[in-house]
């Protein structure tokens, strides 16, 4: 905890100044001009290992073996992408996009009233476009660059994806093209803010939402992703020997789900409840859409979780297994809870349970064995179930589609369970030293994430409120956002 406190001011300062000062200054200067001297490995047509001198037969075979085992090849041979690993990461990146478009859009879209379904789709689409632009210009570099040599922000060397070509960036993957890796990570950066939409669905102005997301990416997502996954990240327990907090997060329990979930809670407090909340019924308008979205999220999540190995290796294989077990069991457990406590297992219950299972296994999937995955599956249903059906009504906030209950609570639960259930038999990157203090580190990481997300969200939301206002007029909200914000109706018969 000492380490944590020591770094807190730095964190805050980094968050604000790096964003507001460094970024705009350093970027226009160097990025859009095409590199005059491209890395020679950068001609991706020749992804083959181009021998520096003439490597020995021993080294050439060792390089091929390194491809099979997803390990570093010999120094004599320049790193190049390998087809099996690249094949999987191309697929995984497409799968993670599929989670948002149309997966999450449908999952959320089905849960709102008919008059607001298009607004949810437009939010997902708009976030996709906005985040892609930010990622291209600054985001990827701020997260995965290292020129700042900073625990909170990466660097400026990849601004405008400058130099990001088909050669691997061996800081993150031995055998996967960096351009694919950058796009894979973009898909994470897209879905995270899109998750927040669920908390304030049906009542936030489109322009306010987009401005909120713009700021949120710089203040929350980019620093958090660097802290956890960046080679010099503050909480990057495995790859950074100097990490302030030696936490682990396989596929984004803190970076994706805790940030979005806790931000969602704060934002829905600041935005306030929907008109008619608790006075009139606001049932989902189309549960079939929600179920389609759930299926797509589940399938796409294999790209998210197994893809986070950044290779088609045994760790990806383990992540696939643990994801499947935890998700199916969480879905089933949720339905059993409903059956026992309320008499009927519902489709919405199954779907919510599946998503909760996916969320909770996310940080753990590359670290736990089948038994661990099954335990997580059960816990992933029980805790969010009560968060959503007891705690939320008791506290009375209007987390419209349960982003907090599922992603906030679930992400936190996942980060903690990972601390308890991770085993080096599954993932040999987990050294004994790391494991010894792991649970404490996970608690620290949870606290950092929680504080950063909530504070930053509160600040951004209040600023946006002052500039644009957060909500449409009552009349507009009553008529529905589809017509007022987008000039369209979803269904015309």
């Amino acid at each position, binding site marked *: 905890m000492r380490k944590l406190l020591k770094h807190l001011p730095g964190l805050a300062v980094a968050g604000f100044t790096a964003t507001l000062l460094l970024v705009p200054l350093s970027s226009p200067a160097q990025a859009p001009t095409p590199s005059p001297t491209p890395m020679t490995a950068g001609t991706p047509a020749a992804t083959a290992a181009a021998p520096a001198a003439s490597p020995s037969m021993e080294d050439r075979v060792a390089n091929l073996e390194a491809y099979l085992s997803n390990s570093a090849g010999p120094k004599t041979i320049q790193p190049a992408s390998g087809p099996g690993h690249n094949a999987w990461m191309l697929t995984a990146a497409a799968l993670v996009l599929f989670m948002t478009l149309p997966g999450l859009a449908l999952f959320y879209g089905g849960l709102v009233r008919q008059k607001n379904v298009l607004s949810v789709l437009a939010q997902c689409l708009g976030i996709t476009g906005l985040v892609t632009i930010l990622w291209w210009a600054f985001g990827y570099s701020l997260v995965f660059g290292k020129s700042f040599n900073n625990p909170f922000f990466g660097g400026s060397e990849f601004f405008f994806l400058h130099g990001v070509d088909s050669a691997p960036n061996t800081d993150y993957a031995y055998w996967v093209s960096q351009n694919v890796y950058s796009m894979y990570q973009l898909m994470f950066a897209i879905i995270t803010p899109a998750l927040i939409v669920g908390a304030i669905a049906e009542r936030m102005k489109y322009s306010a939402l987009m401005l909120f997301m713009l700021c949120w990416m710089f203040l929350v997502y980019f620093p958090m992703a660097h802290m956890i996954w960046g080679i010099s990240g503050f909480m990057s327990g495995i790859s950074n020997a100097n990490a302030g907090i030696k936490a682990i997060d396989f596929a984004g329990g803190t970076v994706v789900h805790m940030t979005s979930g806790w931000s969602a809670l704060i934002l829905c407090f600041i935005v306030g409840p929907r008109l008619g909340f608790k006075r009139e019924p606001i*049932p989902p308008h189309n549960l079939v859409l929600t179920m389609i979205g759930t299926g797509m999220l589940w399938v796409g999540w294999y790209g998210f979780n197994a893809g986070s190995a950044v290779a088609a290796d045994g760790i990806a294989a383990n992540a696939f297994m643990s994801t499947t077990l935890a998700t199916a069991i969480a879905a089933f457990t949720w339905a059993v809870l*409903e059956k026992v406590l*309320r008499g*009927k297992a*519902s489709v*919405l*219950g199954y779907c919510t349970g599946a998503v909760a299972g996916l969320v909770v296994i996310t940080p753990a999937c590359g670290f736990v064995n089948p038994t661990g995955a099954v335990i997580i599956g059960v816990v992933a249903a029980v805790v969010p179930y009560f968060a*959503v*059906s007891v705690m939320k*009504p008791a506290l009375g906030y209007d987390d419209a589609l349960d982003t907090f209950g599922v992603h906030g609570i679930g992400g936190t639960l996942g980060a903690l369970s990972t601390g308890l259930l991770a085993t080096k038999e599954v993932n040999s990157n987990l050294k004994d030293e790391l494991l010894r203090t792991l649970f404490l580190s996970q608690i620290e990481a949870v606290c950092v994430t929680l504080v950063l997300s909530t504070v930053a969200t509160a600040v951004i939301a209040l600023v946006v409120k002052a500039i644009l206002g957060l909500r449409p007029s009552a009349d507009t909200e009553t008529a529905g956002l589809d017509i007022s914000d987008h000039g369209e109706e979803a269904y015309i018969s």
Partner: protein
Amino acid sequence: MKKIEAIIKPFKLEEVKEALSDLGIEGMTVTEVKGFGRQKGHTEIYRGSEYTVDFLPKIKIEVVLADGMVDSATTAVVKAAKTGKIGDGKVFVYPIEEAIRIRTDETGEKAI
């Protein structure tokens, strides 16, 4: 002329339609409506929220017919639509002052 308006259970539509056809009634207009009455609705639960659905799906059948047909038609409808359980619905009879067939401009009983 009168209009008979019957609010019935949806799955009785075919039977009522046939009962009216048997009387030689060749035209009717049907609307999907929601009914509120003695028949109780059900409860739906969505995560934390529980809603009571009071309004049940019903079918409204409207038939305009000559005065002399009213009794036989209401009897036929009542018979066909009855299940004896609560929620079977109602038949209402309204006065009609005029009817016109758009295609031919015929008016009155010839129009129906």
